[in-house]
């Protein structure tokens, strides 16, 4: 009874392994194709947004290639290794965040960068991956849904890095990190009721916190709630962004023809507000193509999550997919005026290095989960 079963399973494994070169490379073809299409689309838009500057496009392409290499490396590492490394990576990340607060390089009034001499990087970016991975690691070994103590520990594991990043101050990234950690909790099957209670607690403590805040901190919160109050014109950003998208119509004004961005009415049009350029130049059609590409990628990621072989990898895959969705939803939502403005790039499209590298590394981990399950499964 046992023996034939074992043999047939062995053969099945072999069959799956041999089936395709992709598995041997530990890459997931559909996901990779989705990423490449999305990036190509992004570079096309960037070329227009950056006033047809080849320098900008090649620089972004270089970052993308670096990200692809990291993705490839991340995909080769079996999830078991991640399981072993995670606690030290998490602790190292916290340590780096403290270093940033102490020695960090100040850019635009906030300390985010750590200068290593040859490279400057934001440790908070590492935490975008490290926090969900850490929570998945911790809860992956517990019974699910988690009871009170594991929940409390998870909350602390999320709050420490989020608070350190918020102190830099970088509210957008802090939110992303917290969202990444919380998204794991969503997948553990804890009652939705907990999220409602949690939201209630936040809402209840807000007025108390307000009393203890400095004026400038209050201003920051007010600006967050009502962009029109921002003297640097965040409200202006939103107005111009809506005009850009709205004037695009169904087919758009055409490549290079967006007046909003090219006449400099639209600020930050290569970075956080690049979606407005898509909306203006490629219209609703272009925006929907983008959304379809995103949906395809997220669908594939969720498929990987559902096929993952144990609790840890399931939670990890689920939360990485959800974090990716969260980033693009917040960005697009902000640009079309249904969410408040927080500094957050459009994943794989916005100009900028660190985010590209982080996102692609996360995809590498997802690919690792997908391509290692057949070998390890017993």
């Amino acid at each position, binding site marked *: 009874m046992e023996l034939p079963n074992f043999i047939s399973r062995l053969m099945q494994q072999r069959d799956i392994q041999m089936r395709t070169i992709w598995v041997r490379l530990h890459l997931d073809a559909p996901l990779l194709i989705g990423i490449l299409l999305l990036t190509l689309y992004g570079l096309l838009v960037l070329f227009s947004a950056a006033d047809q500057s080849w320098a900008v496009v090649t620089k972004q392409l270089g970052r993308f290639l670096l990200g692809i290499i990291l993705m490839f490396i991340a995909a080769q590492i079996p999830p078991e290794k991640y399981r072993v490394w995670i606690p030290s990576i998490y602790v190292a990340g916290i340590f780096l965040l403290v270093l940033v607060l102490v020695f960090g390089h100040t850019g635009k009034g906030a300390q985010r960068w750590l200068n290593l001499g040859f490279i400057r990087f934001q440790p908070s970016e590492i935490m975008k991956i490290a926090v969900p991975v850490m929570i998945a690691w911790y809860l992956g070994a517990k019974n699910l849904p988690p009871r009170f103590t594991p929940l409390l520990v998870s909350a602390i594991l999320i709050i420490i890095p989020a608070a350190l990043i918020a102190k830099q101050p970088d509210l957008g990234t802090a939110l992303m990190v917290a969202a990444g950690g919380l998204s794991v909790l969503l997948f553990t099957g804890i009652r939705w009721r907990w999220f409602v209670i949690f939201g209630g607690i936040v809402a209840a403590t807000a007025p108390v916190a307000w009393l203890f805040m400095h004026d400038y901190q209050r201003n920051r919160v007010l600006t967050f709630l009502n962009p029109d109050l921002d003297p640097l014109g965040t409200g202006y950003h939103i107005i*111009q962004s809506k005009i850009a998208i709205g004037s695009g119509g169904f087919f758009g004004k055409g490549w290079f023809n967006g007046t909003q961005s090219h006449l400099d009415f639209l600020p930050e049009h290569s970075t956080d507000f690049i979606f407005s350029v898509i909306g203006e130049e490629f219209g609703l059609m272009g925006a929907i193509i983008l959304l379809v590409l*995103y949906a395809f990628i997220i669908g594939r990621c969720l498929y990987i999550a559902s096929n993952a072989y*144990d609790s840890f990898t399931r939670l990890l895959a689920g939360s990485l997919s959800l974090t990716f*969705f969260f980033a693009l939803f917040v960005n697009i*939502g902000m640009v079309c005026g249904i969410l408040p403005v927080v500094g957050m790039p459009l994943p794989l499209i916005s100009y900028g290095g660190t985010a590209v590298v982080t996102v692609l590394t996360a995809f590498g981990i997802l690919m690792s989960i997908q391509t290692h399950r057949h070998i390890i499964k017993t």
Partner: protein
Amino acid sequence: MRQYSTLQNPQQLKSLFQRRLWTITLIIAFLFLVLVVRLFYLQIIANRYYSTLSANNSINLAPISPPRGLIYDRNGILLADNVPAYNLMVIPNIVPDMPKTIEELRKIVVLSDDDIKLFNRQISRRRSFQEVPIRMKLSEDEVAKFSINQFRFPGVHIQVGVVRRYPFANDLVTVLGYVGRINEQELGALDQDNYAGSDYIGKIGIEKYYEQQLHGTVGYRQVEMDASGREVRTLKTISPIPGEQLYLTIDSKLEEAAIQAMQGLSGALVAIDPNNGQILALVSMPAYDPNMFVNGVNTQEYKKLRQDPSQPLFNRAIRGQYPFGSTIKVFLALQALQGRYVDPKIQIFDQGEVKLGSHVFHDMHKHGWVDFSKAIEVSCDTYFYLLALKMGIHPMNEIIQNFGFGQYTGIEMNEELRGLVPTPAWKQKTLHQGWYPGDNLNFSIGQGWLLTTPLQLAHGVATLSMRGQAYQPTLILKTIKPDGHVTIAQSRLKPEVKLDDATWDGVIEGMVQVIRGPQGTGYRFGRPEYSVAAKTGTAQVFSLRGEKYNVAKLAKNLHDNSMFITFAPVDHPQIAIAVAIQNSPEAAKIARKVMDYYLLTEGHWQKGALNGTT
């Protein structure tokens, strides 16, 4: 209510996860739908509305630069203010032919090549409909000429702006530094938003150190523009927040008295209130007029300043690194007494030289029988040579470093240098040589590699006057925010130099004798009615770090620098002064004038006496 067993099987876990995954997928799909609906609304339903807005889009943000914070001295005398100036501005996208316009403009107003270079660089930085200055501070004559011809220059106009002015000109540049036009390098490092409308930035001195506070926060005007980029009307204005007002600890009258006393000389003077570390005067002579740097000094004038042999651009008070000369002896004397290396009562016989191996170290004078106090009074080299041999380098280094020498004082200026206190380790590292006993002897009379800035020296003597209680030297009295909020700068204590009372008494007595004693080396100071302690120093140097001058031009006896440290009144010190004068023995005389002004003319002597008794 569902029950979960303690041990779950993988299938259970998996199905729990997959149920949740389905829910989340549905939520994600729903949120995608929200985005699509929103985009459909913006791009299809409201398309006509937004297209119209886009076609007429004309709302723009014009930055309003905040007025720079004013700077006052401790008595509220204005040291730096902003005055109106006429600037010539260009809106690039209106100008039909830029090279021709510039060529024509040059016939009417003075445009240097530097102006045009800066203008071209700025054009590439700003948006094409934003005005860019081409010439700052037009003369009245130029304003009149341009106004008549304005019709010939579309896109060029005169704007009334403000420009920094330093009413004291040369006299306070040592402290204030100056602002200048923002250059490309600075632009890269700046907060672009906040400097969107600013043309000036602090370049050195207080203006640089307090750039952030002085600059303020930019304001904005939402303006409506026509198709060509001309402003039609202002829709909304967000006022800029002016920079903070700065009150310095400097007493500008005292500063001027010092400058008056130092006319024609090269050197520096620093006066500190020892009770709190506040710097009362910080003088470097000769100086230069910061006003000419505000709009970019022209190449010729700058060349002249740089090539001037008296080095006016060199801030000697914080960057001049001078040998201590004999001023170091008072600090070493403290250590000698504290460490019981000498009995203050025992006299030695000074023959005018000390033999060390084959080398003879000379004293300029033969002082005969000399005890501890006398050694300070007459600045007896022989006495200190013997002391140095007895002490060795480490105790000497220790005391010198405890008084803050060889370290940055932390004054609110980025340009400060820190002098040099040589140690055996330093010598090994830089010169690859061991430390010789002869080095100890040089050290004991403040020669060799020892270097101090006048600021450090003033800080050292201030600490000494307070019997070891050290305050961080500071230039800031208070700041006033635009909302009226006043921040009084607190004096900050540095680590105390802890020595016995007898030690302080012994050395300060010696310093009093420098002025009062029959053979006191401070005779040039004269004998004022207030009690005063001092020490002279002479440094035989032929070149000063960071400075070059032509030795051959000067008579031999003028080569020596004179150094002078002093504080008064002795019992309840109100002022501590360090003076370094190059190639002239005038230091003591200058210190006297400054001290008289502060204690007598300004009346701080009485105030001190009052404080001292209560």
